[in-house]
């Protein structure tokens, strides 16, 4: 492994690779900050540039764009309650309250550090375990994936601050909205109203930007968004208090572990990682009463989780040649145009490319940290722009971002409709985050459920015979029961609580 890392260092530290790594993370952060433009848009925009670069440089740059955008996405979540990327929607839950309490600087600094921590953790996981983890993805069958999705959905309903019942309702609404489009198993179109463009369902970014972005702008127009506590831009104010430092270490580690695990499963990715990480933390944290009101752990966990997942997502992509997400499909495209086919032989046939990329992650994460800490002051100043100037600009940016995905004007209208829905839901104290997670996971869960049933010829025992799925279904059940129990019953000492949870 040391030889490999040495080779990686030799590849990653050439002047041009370092430069493109920096350029990638820099552009990625900026595109990620813009609401509506996420890693997918960022990578797609820069894909043509990569055609003119050698394959390892191209990949180093695009990867930088990708995890840079993933990082940048959390900035808008904290400042504006608008997730720059769907996977940072969880960060809104605690990040935005912190910003409103005048602690945006602290939140951004912690985000930068948690992302760095998660990123580095993910890199170590790849460097040490890539071949093993690739095989691990092959051990899972549809029944196991179903159980993972189920756990994600249960976790999502638990993240809600407005009560489990409301959380479950939002998850269900999300699942229902996710059924729009052609059914995978029968090929029948569902709930499209005969609209051709809806055959593939409603886009994730369309829903996310409508529910969070547009509705946030409407709330601010209504005057419902309380003004931010004024914040002096000074470095001392950006530093968390001493006990907060100590409180973040264990959550960062847990978040990174959860993130590294889910990143390696093709198709689940960062959003699942951050929502499950958050839900678990909310169960076991001593500080759980603060969750949703600006708990520092509430941003540390999802940020370390989604950045760890962003790194480990490269494992199935590169070692199996199977993209876990559309963004990863673009990475494969970038390699294919250079005649490199990702697959089990990639590590042995192109060791310089593989290890060079991994070492470049290390530099990329360092660049992100160095790049972003000085910028915190600028981001915080952004909040001093009056809402009536800021939000119209944000809505325009979101509209452009949504339009740019499929060049579809219908998407923009759909997003506005979801904005209205989000606004009405918020008026009645329903939260958009569980809805979004239901919308993401619901269709996947249905797909795996029905595939598992198809393969077992209709025998539901398949979910309990496989140890993986049986354990995960058990955890989901326990989590749901625990949450449904009356609050008073849980008045035990914090230590006991931490051990009783699964």
């Amino acid at each position, binding site marked *: 492994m040391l030889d490999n890392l040495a080779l990686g260092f030799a590849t990653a530290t050439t002047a041009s690779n370092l430069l493109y790594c920096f350029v990638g993370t820099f552009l990625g952060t900026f595109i990620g900050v813009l609401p509506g433009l996420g890693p997918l848009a960022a990578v*797609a925009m820069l*894909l*043509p540039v990569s*055609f003119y670069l050698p394959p390892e440089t191209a990949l180093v740059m695009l990867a930088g764009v990708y995890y840079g955008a993933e990082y940048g996405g959390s900035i808008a979540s904290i400042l504006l309650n608008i997730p720059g990327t769907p996977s940072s929607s969880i960060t809104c839950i605690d990040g935005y309250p912190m910003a409103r309490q005048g602690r945006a600087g602290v939140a951004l600094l912690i985000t930068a550090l948690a992302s760095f921590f998660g990123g580095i953790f993910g890199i170590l996981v790849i460097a040490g375990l890539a071949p093993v983890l690739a095989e691990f*993805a*092959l*051990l*899972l*069958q*549809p029944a196991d994936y179903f159980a993972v999705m189920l756990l994600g959905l249960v976790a999502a309903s638990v993240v809600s601050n407005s009560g489990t019942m409301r959380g479950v309702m939002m998850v269900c609404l999300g699942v229902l909205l996710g059924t729009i489009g*052609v059914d*995978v*198993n*029968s*090929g029948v179109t569902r709930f499209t109203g*005969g609209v*051709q*463009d809806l*055959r*593939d369902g409603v886009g994730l970014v369309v829903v996310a930007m409508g529910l969070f972005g547009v509705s946030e702008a409407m709330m601010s127009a209504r005057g419902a968004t309380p003004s931010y506590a004024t914040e002096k831009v000074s470095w001392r104010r950006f530093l968390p208090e001493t006990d907060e430092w100590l409180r973040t270490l264990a959550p960062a580690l847990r978040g990174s572990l959860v993130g590294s695990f889910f990143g390696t499963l*093709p*198709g689940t990715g960062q959003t699942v990682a951050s929502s499950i990480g958050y839900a678990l933390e909310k169960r076991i944290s001593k500080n759980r009463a603060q969750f949703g009101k600006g708990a520092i752990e509430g941003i540390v966990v999802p940020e370390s989780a989604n950045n760890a997942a962003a790194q480990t997502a490269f494992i*199935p992509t590169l070692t*199996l*040649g*199977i*993209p876990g997400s*559309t963004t990863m*499909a*673009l*990475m*494969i*495209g*970038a390699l*294919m*145009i250079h*005649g490199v*086919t990702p*697959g*089990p*032989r990639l590590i042995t046939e192109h060791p310089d490319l593989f290890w060079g990329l991994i070492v470049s992650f290390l530099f990329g994460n360092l660049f992100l940290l160095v790049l972003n800490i000085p910028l915190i002051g600028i981001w915080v100043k952004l909040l001093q722009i009056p809402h009536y100037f800021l939000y119209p600009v944000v809505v325009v940016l979101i509209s452009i971002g949504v339009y740019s995905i*499929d*060049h*579809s004007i219908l998407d923009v209208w759909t997003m506005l409709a979801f904005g209205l829905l989000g606004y009405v839901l918020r008026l009645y104290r329903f939260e958009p985050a569980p809805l979004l997670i239901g919308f993401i996971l619901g269709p996947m869960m249905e*797909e795996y459920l029905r*595939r598992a049933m*198809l*393969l077992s010829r209709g025998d539901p025992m398949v979910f309990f015979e496989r140890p993986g799925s049986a354990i995960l279904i058990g955890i989901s059940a326990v989590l749901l029961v625990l949450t449904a129990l009356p609050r008073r019953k849980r008045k035990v000492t914090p230590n006991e609580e931490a051990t009783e949870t699964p």
Partner: protein
Amino acid sequence: MPAATRLTIAILAAGLALGASAASAADYPERPVRILVSFPPGGSSDLVARLLAEKLSSELGQQFVVENKPGAAGTVAATELKNADNDGYTLMLSNLTPFSVAPTRFPDTPYDPVADFSHIAYIGAVHLGMFAAPSLETPDMAAFVEQAKAEPGTIDYGSSGVGSWGHVFAVAFENEADVELSHIPYKGSGPMRLDFRAGVIPVMFDAVPQNLPNVEEGVAIPLAVSSPERLASLPDTPTFTELGYDIVAENWLGISGPAGIDGKVIGTLQGAIASALKSDDVVAQFDTWGIVREDMTSDAFTDYVASSAKSWEPRVKQATD
């Protein structure tokens, strides 16, 4: 068509096109040209469009811009193409799904694959393979068919979706070979290949190029390919026709525009595409991607699209009814 004739036609076409482009160079193209692609960015077809766009841009001195309009089995892009101005500034990377499969699969498809378009140039095609896992212990088609007949309905196969070409082809194969298999549909080829490797499904019908690494590694055994002749990339694998099953299928790619594009413009484009397809880097890329190139005149390509739609119609009906 023998190769020599094909080559002659290609040279003639290229020559004619060069003449035409000289005559109309003043008018077309005067501004950037859009190429609609019915896939999201990053897939092999998208890469074909981008590579071609780059070549056409340098050849014709105007930017050819790829615009991804994925959705509804490619019919979103094809509908937009039909409604675009027929001045040659909106083109599309036409392919099997929206033009040969969708009109039958979705009866409300708002266009006719032949009458509503100008089919300008054929580019090439990718073929389908039937792959078995080694665990099935069927080293060739004869053994597979024997086993499938012995245990009807027990062997699962994957395709990249209901009504996808893999599914449609598999149903046609079931009829030809008189076997009964169980269909497990996926959302695209990626997740299916993962499950195939994981041993969830023992058989899949999928495009050949992305499965070559699996074949090399020995985790996928190619039983047959859907091309008319054996493929250079899998020289030892028989075709379905060779084995006595009368089914051929190719996922073709071409460049098309809205109906009624001026003949001169078509000539210009055809010439530029023909010469782009001959350039060394395009040849090399197409070979690594497993795309079998072929030159066709606009008329021949139009006939090809018509016959492709016709031959897929009964198959699609059979698979999705």
